[in-house]
């Protein structure tokens, strides 16, 4: 292997070969690339390569340490699984976008300095949007544009932060930093946008459900986890993150409960699970950071797996809306099986990977005495049991449709099932052998996963939550699913002002609306002003007569003469 080559480049450069291939060769190529990248990563071991002196600053193209290696491993696995899952896709653009996106995410993980990080950061943004646009619907296009704007904004803020940071410290080093300067705040916001902090989160739920079947699987794996990695690297032990994380755990679950679209439900739950990781980073002890790395990896496994299952439903039935599904376990038994396993993983059932990873973060919070935080996380854990662990199998596969079950369909294609089986296998393996799993983690912390206490309490949590869910369904108090969408914070930027009536009584909302409205009008005003004055054929871009030019010359000459005479 080429010494010191960032593994991400293998995927990115390999993507350029994709257009030259077709059919079987292409399948082989796209599957070989993540494997090659993985091999390259393993063969490199730990260290730094490609140190370049640029503009007097140190750029490190490849840097592998235990923290980045965990993310690197799981990213390669996710890339492989996602590509396997999308083998049926004939769209060259999607293959290229997937490879470049995954490659740049991996590249960003192994970036040894801020500038390299920024470059890859931006490539992930630009390449991933094609996975949304590949749906080729008007909705997807618009959603993609919103997504791109938000992602690029994150990049621009990051770049601004880097400039300020270099001005402050004269270094591009990417390591732990203290919040305080403009630069570090800019980093926090840039990372926060990609990590889907509360109020910055809407791009996730907005875009994931609009992407293609396979696109969503790919999208769910990288961007947010990359941000978690960046946060874990830059801000471990920052108290503020604990509080952000708590809100992040709680806030999306309400939406997940009400949501009808299964893919959007998943997106909300994933958002809530990110909260666990943000809390872990905020706690910042070695145990907590281990938990973050572990949970991020596991979260990729089950999120991808569940998106694959819902994706398979969408692929076969053409919808992922709970109200339009029913009794799919009959025609898609294997997919249903994987969905159940995936659900067991996400609820952290013993012997699954999440049982090991989630308890790390929970224990870390107890150990540091964050009891309320711990309670909120438990709440989040219960919510995810009901929202995903039960909702996806029950509404997606087992419940009979109140009106009419959809026509029987075929089970998912073999390669999709293989991809699901791969992720399922890994999730179970990591759960059965937590020792091996933990040995990959960045810090050396001894932690006993399978104690009687843990198992019992977790089973209690899961089973009583199930009981409550079942009771709610029996008593008919579970919020009936409606074919509808739920307003989220993005309402503010997608709809502000049109429906003031709904928000009457909620003063905060009104104030917010007014404020956002003002901003929006301001922005719209600036834009229309710009169009009016700078547009094609308008004052600023028109061919001006030479008379006018001479007038300007004479006028400015007068001004400068006055300036010059003033002494």
């Amino acid at each position, binding site marked *: 292997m080429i010494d010191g080559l960032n593994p991400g480049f293998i995927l990115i450069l390999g993507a350029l070969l994709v257009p030259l291939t077709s059919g079987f060769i292409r399948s082989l190529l796209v599957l070989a690339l993540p494997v090659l990248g993985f091999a390259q990563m393993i063969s490199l071991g730990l260290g730094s390569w490609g140190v370049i002196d*640029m*503009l007097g600053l140190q750029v490190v193209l490849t840097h592998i340490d235990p923290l980045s290696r965990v993310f690197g491993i799981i990213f390669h696995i996710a890339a492989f699984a996602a590509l396997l899952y999308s083998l049926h896709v004939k769209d060259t653009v999607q293959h290229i976008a997937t490879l470049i996106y995954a490659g740049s995410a991996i590249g960003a993980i192994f970036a040894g300095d801020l*500038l390299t990080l*920024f*470059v890859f950061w*931006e490539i992930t943004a630009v390449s991933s949007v094609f996975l949304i646009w590949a749906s080729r619907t008007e909705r997807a296009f618009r959603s993609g544009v919103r997504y791109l704007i938000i992602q*690029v904004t994150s990049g*621009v803020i990051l*770049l*601004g932060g880097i*400039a*300020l940071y*270099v*001005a402050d410290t004269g270094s591009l080093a990417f390591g732990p930093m203290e919040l305080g300067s403009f630069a570090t705040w800019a980093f926090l916001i840039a990372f926060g946008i990609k990590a889907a902090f509360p109020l910055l989160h809407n791009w996730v739920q907005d875009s994931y459900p609009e992407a293609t079947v396979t696109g969503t699987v790919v999208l769910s794996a990288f961007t947010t986890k990359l941000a978690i990695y960046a946060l874990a690297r830059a801000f471990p032990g920052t108290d503020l993150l604990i509080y952000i994380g708590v809100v992040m755990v709680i806030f999306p679950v309400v939406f997940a409960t009400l949501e009808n679209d299964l893919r959007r439900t998943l997106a909300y739950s994933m958002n809530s699970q990110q909260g666990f990781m943000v809390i872990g980073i905020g706690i910042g002890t070695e145990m907590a950071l281990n938990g973050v790395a572990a949970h991020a990896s596991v979260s990729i496994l089950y999120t991808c797996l569940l998106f694959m299952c819902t994706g398979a439903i969408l692929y076969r039935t053409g919808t992922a809306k709970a109200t339009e599904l029913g009794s799919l376990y009959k025609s898609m038994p294997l997919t249903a099986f994987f969905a159940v396993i995936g659900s067991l993983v996400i609820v952290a059932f013993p012997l699954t990977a999440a049982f090991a990873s989630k308890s790390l973060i929970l224990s870390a919070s107890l150990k540091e005495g964050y009891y309320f935080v711990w309670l909120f996380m438990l709440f989040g854990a219960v919510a995810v049991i009901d929202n995903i662990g039960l909702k996806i199998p029950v509404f997606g596969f087992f419940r009979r449709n109140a009106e009419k079950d959809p026509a029987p369909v075929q089970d998912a294609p073999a390669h999709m099932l293989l991809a699901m089986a791969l992720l399922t296998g890994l999730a179970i393996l990591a759960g059965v052998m937590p020792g091996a799993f933990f040995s990959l983690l960045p810090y050396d912390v001894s932690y006993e996963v399978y104690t009687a206490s843990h198992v019992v309490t977790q089973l209690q949590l899961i089973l009583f939550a199930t009981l409550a869910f079942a009771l709610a369904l029996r008593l008919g108090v579970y919020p009936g699913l409606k074919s509808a969408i739920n307003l989220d914070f993005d309402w503010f930027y997608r709809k502000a002002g049109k429906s003031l009536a709904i928000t009457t009584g909620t003063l905060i909302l009104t104030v917010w609306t007014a404020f956002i409205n003002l901003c929006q009008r301001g922005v719209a005003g600036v834009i229309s002003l*710009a*169009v009016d004055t*700078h*547009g*094609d054929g*308008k004052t*600023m*871009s028109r*061919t*001006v007569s*030479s008379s*006018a*030019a*001479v007038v*300007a*010359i004479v006028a*400015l*000459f007068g*001004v*400068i*003469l006055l*300036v*010059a*005479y*003033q*002494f």
Partner: protein
Amino acid sequence: MSLVASHAPVLAIIIPLLAAPVCAMLRGTTFPWFLTTVISALSFAVSVQILLTVSDTGPISYMLGGWAAPWGIEYVADPLSAFVMLIISGISTGVLLYARESIAKEVPPHQLGLFFSAYLLALAGMMGITVTGDAFNIFVFLEITSLSSYVLIAMGEKADRRALTSAFQYLIIGTIGATFILIGVGLLYMMTGTLNIADIASRFDAIADTRPVRAAVAFLIIGIAIKLAMFPFHVWLPNAYSYAPSIVTAFFAGTATKVSVYLLLRFIFTIFGAEFSFGVVSLSELLMPLGVIAFLSMSTVAIFQTNVKRLLAFSSVAQLGYMTVGIALASEAGLTASILHIFNHAIVKTGLFLSVGCMVFVAGSAYLKDLEGIGSRMPLTTFGFVLGGLALIGVPLTPGFVSKWYLVMATLERGDFLGYALTAGMLLSSLLAVIYIWRVVEVAYFRPAPADAEAREAPLSLLIPTWIFIIGSFYFGIQTTVNVGFAEKAASFLMGGL
């Protein structure tokens, strides 16, 4: 020292100047082009020689006709002028490699001799402006450049008759600018009794407080600002660049305005001195707002253009805004950024205009509506354009990024609110650049090509020079020691170091 080396400063000008009339007499399509290319390459070789000598042994002074300095005309090659000469002759040579097939389509064959003759004059003029150490000589060379450039622009008449009106408008505005410079030089001569730049500079402090000198400053700054296409005197530039033949646009975009930036630097720093320019008459307060408006407003205008050449022309005005701001910062860091941007922008913009030239060559138009789906029709050219566009936006690993980086560092160095505001403004302007480049990309890649359009790549004689510039620009974006080194040397020379 060999004969060539000892006469290098004058050779760089004399060669093209003498070749011009010869070229005018040549007939046919190939001979004039060939002669011009050889001459330009010679000029380039001499410039390289000069730059090497200057960086080894310091500034070279050459006495024209052997007359000693304050009386005779002196040619001075210092780090700044040697660097700018290298840019001019290098770009000219690269563009000429591209010219043969391109120009044959845009100019009638019987006029080619005259065309290249004018081209050589323009080259000689620009080289002369940079190397001369005599204030009046600057005016003479400036007019040689201007007159030949009016002609060159008007040559675009065959493709679009608006070339004529643009050339005429440029003539009116340009002549006013040059005459202002003439008046300024006259006033300076009146007060100092000398035309030698170094001589004027040495006597300047004694007479700095007099009114004629203040008037001279006003005349000179306005005159140069017109030639530099500084906002709001840029009105001649977009049309001139849009309707001129492709290679003329590419040549001028890389050089003409850069020479004016050089002049601005020369007058502000060498003759007036930084202390007078920024301390006594506070030119920064004039240049700074103009620069900021230029890069914000002109980038916005570029977004709405329907003609790619015009779009790039407005973007040039915006980029000149960056250079103006760099000068107005009045610090060594700002100056370095400006000089660096002269080089980086020259190479990037030339590459972009050349790739647009390829599109015009095949598609016959630079209007967006005619370029739909050009990405699949001319993949190599369009990809080159995209890479150039990235460099223009200032994506890392491109020269655009390097110079913007220096500029941002220079603004942040101020550490006050204005510094942060400028940084924000530049980021905003980069976003605008993303939009206007994206517009072209969108049309090129995401619109279906018209059914009757043929898929044909531009001929290699066009593609190769284009890609030389594109690859070159990436080279200088990654391997920054060469350009940054020279820019820093020139900046510290101007600030009185060395």
